[in-house]
């Protein structure tokens, strides 16, 4: 079905779900155009466009159906991981950072995050370790100083500290 077709289908499902949700929007009486009007118009438009996309994806993948296989699954998976592995790792680390912020507080979470991400992105050599730690520490502390102390912009507090 091709990527486009897949995305188109996904969007159609999304529209369907949203439309189902939109039936719960309470419309105040005596109003000609209630709060559900605009979202439903938008949903209709999106669904139409998504359908076009899905169809286009279908047609495109049909015309490319004769392409030869690109290698067996393990090697393809390996190549994919090589390319996107770091991205996934970075996003995962970021997610963990955001989740930990309200628990551990800004200082600790930021220190852990900056250190961990540098590690994941390639700062592995033993001699770069003190540098990485210094960067982590400096980033954490300087942002804390500038934002919380100087600019009086408050940063997340943890449960413990």
């Amino acid at each position: 079905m091709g990527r486009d077709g897949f995305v188109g289908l996904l969007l159609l499902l999304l529209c369907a779900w949203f439309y189902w949700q939109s039936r719960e929007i309470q419309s105040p009486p005596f109003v000609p155009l209630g709060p559900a009007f605009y979202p439903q118009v938008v949903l209709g438009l999106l669904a139409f466009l998504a359908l076009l996309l899905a169809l286009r994806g279908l047609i495109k993948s049909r015309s490319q159906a004769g392409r030869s296989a690109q290698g067996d699954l393990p090697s393809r998976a390996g190549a994919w991981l090589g390319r996107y592995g770091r991205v996934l790792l970075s996003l995962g680390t970021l997610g963990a950072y955001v989740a930990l912020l309200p628990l551990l507080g800004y200082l600790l979470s930021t220190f852990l995050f900056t250190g961990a991400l540098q590690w994941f992105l390639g700062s592995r050599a033993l001699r770069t370790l003190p540098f990485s730690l210094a960067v982590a520490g400096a980033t954490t502390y300087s942002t804390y100083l500038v934002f919380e102390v100087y600019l009086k912009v408050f940063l997340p507090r943890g449960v413990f500290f």
Partner: protein
Amino acid sequence: MLDLFVSSVTSVLRPDVFLSMLGGITAGLIGGALPGVTITMTIILVLPFTFGMDPLQGLATMVGVYVGGESGGLVTACLLGIPGTPSAIATTFDGFPMARKGEPGRAVWIGIWASLLGGLLAGVPLVVGAMTLATLALKFGPWEFFSLFILTLSIVASLSEKSILKGLIAGVFGLLVTAIGSDPIMGVPRFTLGSDFLRGGFPFLPILIGVFGIAQLMGDVEKLRPGQDRGALPAGVNLKVSHLRVIGEILRQPWNLIRSTLIGLWIGVLPAVGGSAANILAYDQAKKASRHPEKFGTGIPDGIIATESSNNANIGGSLITMMAFGIPGDAVTAVMLGALIIHGIQPGPLFVTTHTKVAYGMFAAYFIAHGLTVLIEWIGLRLAMRVITVPLRVLAPIIIVLCVVGSYALNNVMANVWTFFFFGVIGYLMVKFGFPLAPLILGVILGDQIETNLIRAIMTDSDLSLFFTRPLSGSLLLLSVVSFGLGLYQARRQQRGSRTLGTPLLHEER
């Protein structure tokens, strides 16, 4: 008006404003020079620092970031052959060869002075244009606003490089995102799933930060190879040059300068299209208009003058649209819009007349920043350029931390950070699947206003034909159809293999 201008200049020259503008320009210079860090990202990172400032100071700083950033990109473009920002791509075409031929200083300084001259030239249309358009927009009724926003979305979608259909989908998806929350007219909750946070809807700044920060950054992470660090500036590069001679070189090409400035201005006014398109188009046009087109690409000043004057003029153009209509001329002005909202200022045509001090302050900052940028580059170019050697694995975590702080600091709610994360992932996925980001952001920014104006128009007069029969509204809608048709036509031509100028949009922006 003159005394307003004078007083705005004095307020920008106030020590605290002046200093933070200097900081903004420096940040812009460094961020602009760093390949992989766009001006949009830099201004996103500077944004939280402006929360504690008064609006004039905050916006003057951001204008500084913008101006500094457009200049910063040319340095790495000329010296390393790598554009620091997408708006310096075409600068590499002639800047790098010139540097390689043994004239790095001349290349860099032609760029810097051309940036100054182009920017200053565009300053007058900026002030005049913003004021005139704002006055015009005061006459708009809801029909006109609705049609204007539709025109904006259709322009942006039809300029999508890869697929107009995907551009439209991105835009409409952005509209859908804004439908989540309370409806803007009656406050009835929509799609909130009973959650208190969703009831307030998604604030657009964390979405912007996520989409432009994370998507760009993850794209860079993808390309990271183990053991690869950024190329350092070649040691012993002599940047000395006779400034008078360089300026003379530029002034000897007045048509090139003027034409490129106009191109930059025009592209700036076009919503969501930015410096990256301006510099390529200006280069292309300069080459076509030149008497010696074959010399382009070998290291002649014409190319550098064209690209650098146009990308600075683009700032002026983007500011016009933002200040007159509240529509972002590009991603950077989108962040500025966010800053205005945070400071309690409602963008839109009333902005210039209601907050005259801030508006004039921005005009003054625009001019002064150009001069300051040249000054800073004169003093500290080599020093600042050492920062380019910082590798991505160190830079990325720092950038992300600043994004997180920026999202949190908006109103001290963790949910905003989750919004940032969520839309960061969505933004990255969108880029991977070939969807442009510009229409999404515009949809998110304009969504509420589109709905409000639509409903208001219909409730005032249920005659739908008014959208077409009212002259301004009708012509705006007609323009939408025309731009849409042009876009389809261009796309068809492109499919047939003929070379058309791709216009890279916000997702590869600045």
